[in-house]
């Protein structure tokens, strides 16, 4: 069978099995809704889901963008100064290893706006993989190419543009792929901790509400939307990686 179709076939088979199980075993929908009911719930509640989905996506991508800027800038500073890295890298590790669920309540106290608090939580999770990978990437430039740039009297700007940025790019993209998935997780986690406060709320709040009312199909609908978003982010970054590294990097060769 065509290998490209294999994941799709597996997925459809799983859904069909699930549908059949629910129907044949007469499982009540508040215990386990059939996929068809989840889809119907999703369509029926589209009006309330779309703004929530958009809010979550906004938090995810805004903080990811800020994480890219912050991660790359800090990595560049660390690459310039070994002492700065030695002084500050442990701090980045502390931020990274402390679970965001545990930090979120504190941040919610300090930061007035819920949206800003969510952004900050998500940023803390997303920036580390970008920082760590970009730093390794900036250091990974071929030492002989560095010699060559010295021999030909390259300016610092030329070295950055023609040597360091291209050398670091594959590493940055690897970090971006990890951070993309993580930032969605963090955006939802932080909102779960924050609770449904403020005017704008995301998918986490929809799932929470449904949970309070034991509206299981709606919980599944929210989850399905989240999963689909995660997969889309994964795909998008894989496509970006192929586009940027396609012809030259070993990771993209078959």
């Amino acid at each position, binding site marked *: 069978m065509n290998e490209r179709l294999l994941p799709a076939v597996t997925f459809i088979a799983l859904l069909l099995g699930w549908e059949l199980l629910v129907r044949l075993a007469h499982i009540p929908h508040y215990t386990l809704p059939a996929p068809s009911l989840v889809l119907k719930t999703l369509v029926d509640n589209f009006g309330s889901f779309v703004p929530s989905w958009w809010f979550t996506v906004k938090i995810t991508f805004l903080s990811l963008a800020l994480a890219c800027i912050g991660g790359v800038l800090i990595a560049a500073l660390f690459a310039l100064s070994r002492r700065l890295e030695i002084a500050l890298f442990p701090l980045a590790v502390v931020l990274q290893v402390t679970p965001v669920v545990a930090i979120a309540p504190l941040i919610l106290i300090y930061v007035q706006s819920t949206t800003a608090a969510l952004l900050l939580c998500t940023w803390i999770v997303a920036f580390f993989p970008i920082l760590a990978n970009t730093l390794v990437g900036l250091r990974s430039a071929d030492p002989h*190419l560095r010699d060559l*740039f010295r021999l*030909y*009297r390259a300016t610092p700007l030329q070295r950055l543009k023609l040597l360091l940025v*291209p050398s670091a*790019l594959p590493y940055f993209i690897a970090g971006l792929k990890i951070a993309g998935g993580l930032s969605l997780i963090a955006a939802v986690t932080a909102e779960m901790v924050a609770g449904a406060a403020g005017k704008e709320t995301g998918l986490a709040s929809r799932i929470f509400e449904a949970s309070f009312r034991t509206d299981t199909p709606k919980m599944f609908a929210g989850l399905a939307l989240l999963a689909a978003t995660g997969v889309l982010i994964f795909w998008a970054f894989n496509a970006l990686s192929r586009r940027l590294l396609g012809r*030259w990097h070993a990771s993209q060769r078959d």
Partner: protein
Amino acid sequence: MPAALVCLDRVDKSFNNGVTALQGVSLTLAAHEFITLLGPSGCGKSTVLRLVAGLDAPSAGRVESPAAGGAGAADTAYVFQEPTLMPWASLFDNVWLPLRLAGMSRRDAAEPVRAVLHTVGLSDFESAYPGELSGGMKMRASIARALVTRPRLLLMDEPFAALDEITRQKLNPDLLDWWRAQQLAALFVTHSVFEAVFLSQRVLVMGPRPGRIVAELAIDAPYPRSAEFRVSSAYAQACRALSLALESAQAGSDVASR
């Protein structure tokens, strides 16, 4: 004898870890001359090249060369053992690099880049990426990048050591052609006796720990040197003399290190 292009006068080089890489190394390289440094690995051959290229400074002694003097980097080119191409750039862009760093636009560089790619036989591959080429082609591209600035001095650090014997036998006479056509001075590093004899006018034999020059041999055979030279008695004699010099250099250092 034309004026010396490169001059090392009683040069020592020690590294921070206490290793003495070179001790009392003196050599001169005239314009248009082809000299080979021959020695076992770890005897400081590459260190000599790095000093001449101005990439390192000597601990003692004097180094005079176009690059070390700061007269202009374009006068000196360096070829490493690995092709050291930028994997993200096409061959054209790789060869363009030295001109680009000197501020030449892509359009202005097109003519010299294409000319040198033609010289090394890679005209059809200017838009290929390094990952798509064989080892020998990558090394040709690396030499093209070195030649594109029309340097006066070409430094080569075992450039053919990682290539198979057949590719190497093809590249050796090609290198001599390019050296003669561009009127370069070449300082070549190798651990192959045969390569040293085939290429050079003079061979300096280096011994290890600490790196120093222990013998010198002139190879008087005229250029162009063809495959016939490889089977001549002059070639065999030179190889024999160099092998002996190399052996005694190593034996001497083994005694010294005991």
